[in-house]
């Protein structure tokens, strides 16, 4: 309703008063409306902050449980010395982008997309690197320039905390894409206020069996390694999804906190202008009345 009354107001005021008067009157109305909308936005950002704070607490708790999955695999990679042997340009590379569907959380998704963009921009245009986008945000950010590289998009991520079943579904999709060298790009949660974009490699059975220090581990044969490799993919995905969910919530919390603060600042400024303008209007009207009365005498 406000929307409809505003233009007509301005029009009839233009007819009735002189230029100066008309403008200040209209601004008063405009400031009021602006104030109202900023207050509403602040309410929204505040409640979003509360929601993400609760979600963050849960994500952090769940991350603590999920950490052994990823750390264990990473420790295995490290102790056995299993690394990708990069002989020249590797073909059939695969990059998994771990993001979510939801925005309004600072730069978490952008950082992941930026890392991938940098990587892809260094490659030959016909290298055929595949990108697996987990979450709509990475798709949206990579679609414009590198839509040819996107192999699979997984969405409906981020509404609920990721489960191991989610991760294994993604892992099963990854198995279907054949790749020689893979890695996951994700945001590692460091503390409530910081996260870091990192990558973990996805190694193949061959690389794992060719690891130089494999003797550290006992009773490993090919079938055990095959099972373990399948598990590492799912476990790493689960770990990275949890990490990224946690960083996302913490980042959203900070972003919404900042937004509420900024809105508060804006409200303060607008209230001040509003009161000043109102005062000016009252003063002017008083002057008009008094001088009008004086002219009549």
């Amino acid at each position, binding site marked *: 309703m406000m929307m409809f009354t505003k233009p007509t107001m301005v029009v009839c005021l233009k007819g009735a008063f002189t230029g100066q008067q008309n403008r200040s009157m209209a601004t008063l109305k405009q400031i009021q409306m602006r104030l109202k909308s900023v207050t509403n936005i602040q309410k929204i950002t505040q409640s979003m902050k509360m929601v993400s704070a609760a979600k963050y607490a849960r994500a952090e708790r769940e991350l603590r449980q999920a950490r052994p999955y990823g750390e264990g695999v990473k420790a295995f990679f490290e102790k056995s010395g299993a690394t990708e042997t990069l002989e020249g340009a590797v073909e059939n590379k695969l990059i998994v982008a771990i993001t979510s569907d939801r925005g309004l959380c600072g730069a978490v998704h952008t950082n992941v997309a930026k890392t991938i963009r940098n990587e892809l921009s260094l490659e030959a245009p016909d290298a055929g690197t595949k990108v697996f986008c987990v979450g709509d945000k990475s798709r949206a950010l990579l679609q414009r320039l590198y839509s*040819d590289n996107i192999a*699979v998009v997984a969405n409906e991520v981020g*509404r609920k905390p990721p*489960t191991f*079943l*989610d991760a294994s579904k993604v892992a099963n999709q990854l198995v279907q894409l054949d790749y020689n060298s893979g890695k996951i790009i994700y945001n590692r949660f460091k503390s409530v206020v910081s996260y870091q974009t990192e990558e973990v490699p996805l190694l193949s059975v061959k690389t794992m069996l060719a690891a130089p220090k494999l003797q550290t581990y006992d009773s490993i044969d090919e*079938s055990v390694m095959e099972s373990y490799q399948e598990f590492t993919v799912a476990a790493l995905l689960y770990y990275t999804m949890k990490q990224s969910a946690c960083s996302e919530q913490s980042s959203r919390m900070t972003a919404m906190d900042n937004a509420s603060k900024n809105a508060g600042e804006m409200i303060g400024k607008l209230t001040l202008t509003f009161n000043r303008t109102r005062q000016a209007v009252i003063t002017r009207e008083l002057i008009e009345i008094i001088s009008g009365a004086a002219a009549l005498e």
Partner: protein
Amino acid sequence: MSYWRAAGLNYVNYSNIAAKIVRRVLKPELQSNASKRDETHVKFTPWIKGKPAKPGQQ
């Protein structure tokens, strides 16, 4: 070769099925909590030549 691999499963599928069965035989008070870990919502869309192909495919 293990029997489940012979049946065409990989380790992840096999362990997920095992986990599902374990969740099913839990005591009722633990089951409600565990059943939350038993759901997925992720949907996949394969992309071909920069365009999504057949949306909503598993």
